[in-house]
C-alpha cells in the first residue's frame, strides 16, 4: 500500500509541476499549526478554508453551468442565520443546527431556481442579485428577532480550541473540494454531471437536443451550489461566534466569491482555491502590511537622497488602509490582461499536454514522458 503510494508519487506527481504544487500546498496547510499557533494566523487560515468552500461552490454553479449567480451570499446567509436562530431560540448545539442550516440553504437553492430557470444572461444575474438583498431588508426590519445590524452573538464554538476549529474547517474544505472536483470532472467515467454542466454552459439548446434534461441538471447545480455554500455559511457562523448581516448577506459578500474565482481562474476548481488562498490573506493581513511599511518608513534615514523612497513607502502605507481598493484594482488588471485567471495562466505556463496521449507534462520537457511524442 505504502509502496504503491510512493510509486504513484514518483511517477505521477513529481513529473507534473501542478500536482507537485498541490501536494506541497496540502502538506503546508495541514502542518501549519506546527509552524505557528498564533491565533491571528490560525484564525486567518480557518476563514480562508471556509471561504474556499464558498468560492468553489460558486465556481461549480456559475462557472461550470454558466448560470451567473450574483447572489451567492443568499445560501451562505441562510445557513448562517438558520443555525444561529436555532441556537438562540431552541438552544440546540452546533452538531444539530449546522445540518439544518445546510438543508435550509439547499431549500433556498431550490426556491431560487423557480424564477432563475426561466431567465438567462443579464436577467438571471439581476434576479439572483436581488434575493440576498431582499433577505437583508427582512433581517434589518425584524430587529427583535434577528438583532438587525448587531446580529446574533455568543454562538457556541464547534471545537474546544482554535487549532481544533482550524482542522475541522480544513478537513471539511478538503472533502468538499474533492467532491466538487469529482462532480465537475468532464472526463470522469463514473459521473456524467461534469460533462453535462459543460454542455449546458456552451450551448443549452444543443444539450437539450441531445436528450439532456437541462432543467433537471440546472436544478441539480443550484442544489449542489447551495449545499456547499450552506456548509461554508454554517461553519462561518460557529467559528466566528456570531452572525451579522454585514458579513453574510451584503452585495460585497456575493461579489467576493466572484472576484476570488475570476482571479484564480473560472471553470477550474483549483483556480478558485488559488484565488481565495491568495486574496483573502492579502486583505486580512493589510493591517500587518501597513505596520510593516510604517516601521520601514521609520527605519529609512531622513536624508534628502531617500525622499522618493520615503514617499513610496508612505504611499503604500496609505493604500494598505484600503484593501478593497487594492482588490478592485487587481480585478480590473486581471480582467484586462489575464482573462483566464492567475491559476490557469500559471498552469498553462508550467504544464503542457501531450498531443498524442493527452498526458500532462512539465513545460520544460521536449518529449512526452509516456509515449515519447514531440511536444512542440
Amino acid at each position, binding site marked *: 500500500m505504502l509502496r504503491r503510494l510512493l510509486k504513484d508519487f514518483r511517477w505521477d506527481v513529481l513529473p507534473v509541476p501542478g500536482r507537485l504544487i498541490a501536494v506541497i500546498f496540502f502538506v503546508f496547510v495541514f502542518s501549519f499549526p506546527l509552524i505557528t499557533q498564533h491565533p491571528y494566523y490560525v484564525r486567518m487560515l480557518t476563514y480562508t478554508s471556509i471561504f474556499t468552500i464558498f468560492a468553489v461552490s460558486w465556481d461549480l454553479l456559475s462557472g461550470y453551468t454558466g448560470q451567473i449567480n450574483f447572489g451567492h451570499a443568499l445560501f451562505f446567509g441562510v445557513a448562517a442565520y438558520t443555525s444561529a436562530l436555532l441556537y438562540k431560540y431552541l438552544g440546540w448545539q452546533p452538531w444539530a443546527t449546522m445540518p439544518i442550516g445546510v438543508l435550509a440553504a439547499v431549500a433556498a437553492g431550490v426556491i431560487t431556481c423557480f424564477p432563475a430557470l426561466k431567465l438567462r444572461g443579464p436577467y438571471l444575474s439581476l434576479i439572483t442579485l436581488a434575493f440576498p438583498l431582499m433577505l437583508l431588508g427582512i433581517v434589518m426590519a425584524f430587529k427583535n428577532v434577528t438583532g438587525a445590524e448587531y446580529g446574533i452573538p455568543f454562538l457556541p464554538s464547534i471545537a474546544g480550541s482554535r487549532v481544533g476549529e482550524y482542522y475541522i474547517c480544513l478537513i471539511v474544505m478538503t472533502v468538499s473540494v474533492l467532491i466538487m472536483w469529482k462532480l465537475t470532472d468532464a472526463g470522469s467515467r463514473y459521473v456524467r454531471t461534469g460533462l453535462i454542466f459543460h454542455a449546458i454552459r456552451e450551448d443549452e439548446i444543443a444539450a437539450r437536443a441531445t436528450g439532456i434534461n437541462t432543467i433537471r441538471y440546472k436544478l441539480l447545480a443550484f442544489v449542489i451550489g447551495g449545499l456547499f455554500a450552506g456548509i461554508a455559511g454554517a461553519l462561518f457562523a460557529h467559528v466566528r461566534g456570531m452572525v451579522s448581516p454585514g458579513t453574510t448577506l451584503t452585495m460585497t459578500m456575493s461579489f467576493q466569491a466572484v472576484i476570488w474565482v475570476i482571479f484564480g481562474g473560472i471553470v477550474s476548481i483549483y483556480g478558485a482555491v488559488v484565488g481565495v488562498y491568495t486574496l483573502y490573506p492579502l486583505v486580512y493581513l493589510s493591517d500587518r502590511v501597513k505596520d510593516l511599511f510604517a516601521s520601514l518608513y521609520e527605519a529609512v534615514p531622513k536624508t534628502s537622497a531617500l525622499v522618493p523612497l520615503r514617499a513610496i513607502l508612505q504611499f503604500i502605507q496609505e493604500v494598505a488602509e484600503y484593501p478593497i481598493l487594492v482588490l478592485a484594482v487587481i480585478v480590473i488588471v486581471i*480582467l484586462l490582461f489575464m482573462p483566464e485567471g492567475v491559476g490557469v495562466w500559471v498552469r498553462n505556463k508550467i504544464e503542457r499536454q501531450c498531443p498524442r496521449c493527452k498526458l500532462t507534462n512539465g513545460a520544460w520537457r521536449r518529449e512526452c514522458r509516456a509515449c515519447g511524442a514531440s511536444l512542440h
Partner: protein
Amino acid sequence: MLESIIVFTLVSGGIYALLALGFSLIFGVARVLNLAHTAFFMLAAYGMFYLVSEEMGIGLGNIPSIIITVVVVTLLGLVSYKLFIDRIREHHAAVLLLTIALALVIQEVLLWRFQGDVRGIPSLIPGFTEILGIRVLNQYLLTLGMVAVVIIIVWLFLSKTKMGIAIRATANDPEIANLMGISVSRILLITMGLATALAAVAGVVVAPLWPLRPIMWGSPLMMIMVIVVLGGLGSIKGSIIGAFIIGFVATVVSLDPFRVLGGGGPYLNVTFVLLAMVIVLVVRPAGLFGTIFEEERL
C-alpha cells in the same frame, strides 16, 4: 401624509428617472450592464460637494460648480469606457464584474479623500414655495424642473437629431447600422458619454437633498435595476414610467402611512421593490415596454 407622498414620489421618481434613463440607454445601445453607473452619480455628488463646500473644498459658486462637475464626470466616464469596458464588451459576466470593480475603486477613493462621514451641501435655492396650500422646498422644485428639462432635451435629441436616430439604429441592429455608414464604436462612445452625463446631472441635483456617503451608490443601483427591468431593459419610455412607479412604491413603504410595517419601512422598501422586480421578471420577462432579444430567449 398624502401631500408628502406626492412630493417625495415626484422628486425621487424624477431622480431615478434620470439615472435609469442613462443606465437603460447604455444597455440598449452597447448591451453593457454598467453597474458603475451610480458610482459616477455618487462621484458627481461628491464633486459638487468638493467644489461648493468652503471648509473641505475650494468654495466655488453654484453654476460653475455644476458645469465643471458634469463635464469632468462625463470625461471620466468616457475614459473608463474606452480603457476598460470597450475591450471586454462581448462578455456579460466580465462586464458586470469589471463595472463593479470600477464602482468599488470610486467608492474607496472617495472614502480615502473624504472619509466615511456623512456630508452634505446647503440647498442651491433656500426657502419654500406654497402650491395649493402645500409648502414645497424650492430645492425640490428646482430638482423637478431640471429633471423635466433634461429628460425633454434627451427625448428631442434621440427622436429628432440625426445623431439620435443613429443611436437608435445602432440599438436596433449594430451590424445593419454599420452597413448604413454609421460608425458603431463612435456611437457607443457618444452613448456612454450621454449616459454618464445624465448620471452626473442626477448627482448634481441630489447633492443638496441626500446625505452623501461613499456607500450611497448601492441603494440607487438596486432601484434603477428594478426600474429598467420593470420598464423593459433598453426601453426609454419604460424606464421613465417605471421610475415613477418605483418612486411611489418606495415612498409609500418608507413613509408607511397605515403603520402596518411596525417601523421597519425604511429597511423593507428595498425588499418590496426587489419583490416587484422578481414578480415582473417571472410573469413578463420583457418588462412592461421592452422586447426580448432573440438570442436571449430561452
